[in-house]
């Protein structure tokens, strides 16, 4: 596994991505897991999501994180992220970013022919959250798991999922707060966990349920989560 990891990192270095993309700050680096779940992932985080539970969730899923990148509006990010999507289709790209970055990244995904499994708009504030999810077939089950997880955590939330074959939402889950000490950032951790698990072909519900209560700094505002790659 180390050999494979070195090889992948070598490839990224050649792309100029191992350290920085578009001069972003490298905000975290995860240690390799003993059990690796799915293809290696590059993680995009912005608007404070770098300090959220999103990364912890990905790590908890046993996903190998090659790099963590903060997107910006620089042309360096645009060019190098595009190059990564074009030249490394074996990588997964998982993100929790702001609306502007999401628009740029999805535009790049389309331009480079990347596959996309998940696109969700999230809003968090005043102890509540909303999650509107568009998912492709291979991400089936992630949204319902997220909803069940938020309900189990005692969250006050609305979750709605659509997928291309149907015009009507095929999933709508609502939770009302029962626990004032609701895990404040659990949605981000659970989202990271589920998106990372998806590539592994299975979700370890036990580990999902065991995600730490407050695994990061609480987020507020609007975010977009996404999953790209084969």
């Amino acid at each position: 596994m180390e050999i494979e990891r070195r090889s992948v990192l070598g490839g990224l270095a050649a792309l100029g991505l191992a350290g920085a993309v578009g001069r972003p700050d490298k905000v975290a680096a995860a240690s390799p897991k003993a059990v690796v779940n799915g293809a290696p992932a590059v993680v995009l985080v912005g608007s404070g999501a770098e300090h959220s539970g999103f990364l912890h969730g990905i790590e908890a899923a046993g996903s190998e994180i090659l790099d963590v990148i903060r997107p910006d509006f620089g042309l360096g990010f645009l060019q190098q992220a595009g190059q990564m999507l074009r030249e490394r289709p074996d990588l997964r790209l998982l993100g929790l970013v702001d609306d502007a970055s999401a628009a740029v990244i999805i535009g790049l995904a389309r331009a480079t022919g990347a596959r996309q499994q998940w696109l969700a708009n999230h809003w968090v504030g005043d102890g509540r959250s909303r999650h509107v999810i568009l998912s492709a077939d291979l991400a089936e089950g992630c949204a319902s798991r997220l909803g069940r997880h938020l309900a189990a955590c005692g969250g006050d939330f609305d979750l709605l999922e659509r997928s291309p074959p149907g015009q009507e939402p095929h999933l709508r889950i609502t939770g009302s707060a029962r626990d004032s000490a609701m895990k404040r950032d659990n949605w981000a951790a659970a989202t990271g966990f589920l998106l990372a698990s998806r590539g592994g072909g299975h979700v370890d519900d036990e580990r999902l349920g065991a995600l730490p209560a407050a695994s990061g700094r609480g987020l507020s505002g609007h975010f977009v989560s996404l999953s790209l790659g084969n």
Partner: protein
Amino acid sequence: MAQEQKTVLPEKVSRQQFDRAADEFRRLLGAENVLVQEQQLMPYMKVMMPKPETEFAPSAALTATTVEQVQGIVKICGKYKIPIWTVSTGQNLGYGTAAPHHRGQVILDLKKMNKIIDVDPDLCTALLEPGVTYQQLVDYLREHKYALWVDPPAPSAIAGPVGNTLDRGVGYTPYSEHFMFSCGMEVVLANGEVLRTAMGGVEGSNTWQVFKWGYGPYLDGIFTQSNYGVVTKLGIWLMPAPEMFKPFAIKYERDEDIEQLVEMFRPLSISGVIPNGVVLVGTLYEASATVRRSDYTTEPGATPQAVIDKIRKEHGIGAWTAYAALYGSKEQVAVNWDIVTRAVKQSGVGQIVTEEEAGDDPAFRYRADLMRGNMTITEFGLYNWRGGGGSMWFAPVAQARGSETLKQMKLATQILNKYGFDYVGEFIVGQRALHHIVDVLFDRTIEEEMKRAHDCFAELLRAFAAEGYAVYRVNNVYMDQVAEVYGPVQRNVNQTLKRALDPQGIFAPGKSGIRI
């Protein structure tokens, strides 16, 4: 095949017919260029309109690399009556992005037709395929050391000249009216023929990219904002790099100042003293480069005036900021700078900010980049102002008169505020006309807000039409409503052309409200 069983189908096309067509597309293009899996189609479904993404779900996306392949696609579509929605780079943000007009249409994605066929550094012309991006063109010019500038719209680097010109987009340099600076097209027609417009029809001609008009009716216009063919090549004119470029801003304190501002700029624009599109940017548009609404308030509804005033004060933003630039030799720029500064002084309002005075101001730098034709994606910051992924450009045209701007701004603000949204707008002065550009930003995570945004935009269109105004471009949801505003005769003529050129109606049904 299991994947395909779940795909969306085009209207009035059976599963069996669609599968047969898909097989023919694969034989023509190769399987890797026929996208039918949900994961492959998802990137085409990121919409900002006030409708669920699934309403725009395509049944497939095809990527072609040659004109012959486009002809083959058109033939297969005709055979199975499959509608195709053509995109070039698919970055028509705020106007529908890459999504088809309605669910089930097959997307013809021309991103792989990305050859820069010719650039003539003497005549300052280029002949491009639809997938060429502005960044690609800039890189090419740089590589060949051609002293030529491009004129990008705001999403510059990732958008392309062909698609933007065909949607009659505008930029910010002296070549800002993109269709005006285009010259010659190649179009695949529904009958499979390839039309080269104007001088392109003359065998052995070398004037296709230098003389627009040819002989007889001028046809290029009918292939813009329309669905009469698939444009596979476009000629554009490039701006010779001037010896000197001098961007500047003028800040105005009061909303009402815009009247005087336009009266001052119009003659400077018409006379060519200021040759580029002068942009008059409202407070919140200007602020979006650096500020989020949630930095100041998390209350729902329109942002209170007191908050807007606070943003102005804390960030040194005017009620309006005018951005313009001078281009030419040092002597020309010096003369014109003198004319501009005298005009501002005589007007008695407005504070000039030069590039040197602006320093690192990101808003100034962004605007200077646009006016210089540099690549930038700073405008994406608008999407973070309110957040939630909803954005629609409301873009009515006005006469370049001060009284018109204030009237339009007040009308738009009143309607937007009534529905709980902000006026995030700017005006672009193009000599005699103004493009009034308002970004209707809303939160797509709230179903009620989506509905409100939908109704708000419809009312904006209605209320402006009642005053004799119409938009020059619109997203997929409102194409019929806008076509109605332009009257039944125009609509009938458009339909007559559609029936003549595309009798089966396979090209982008619904585009600009045009169907067979």
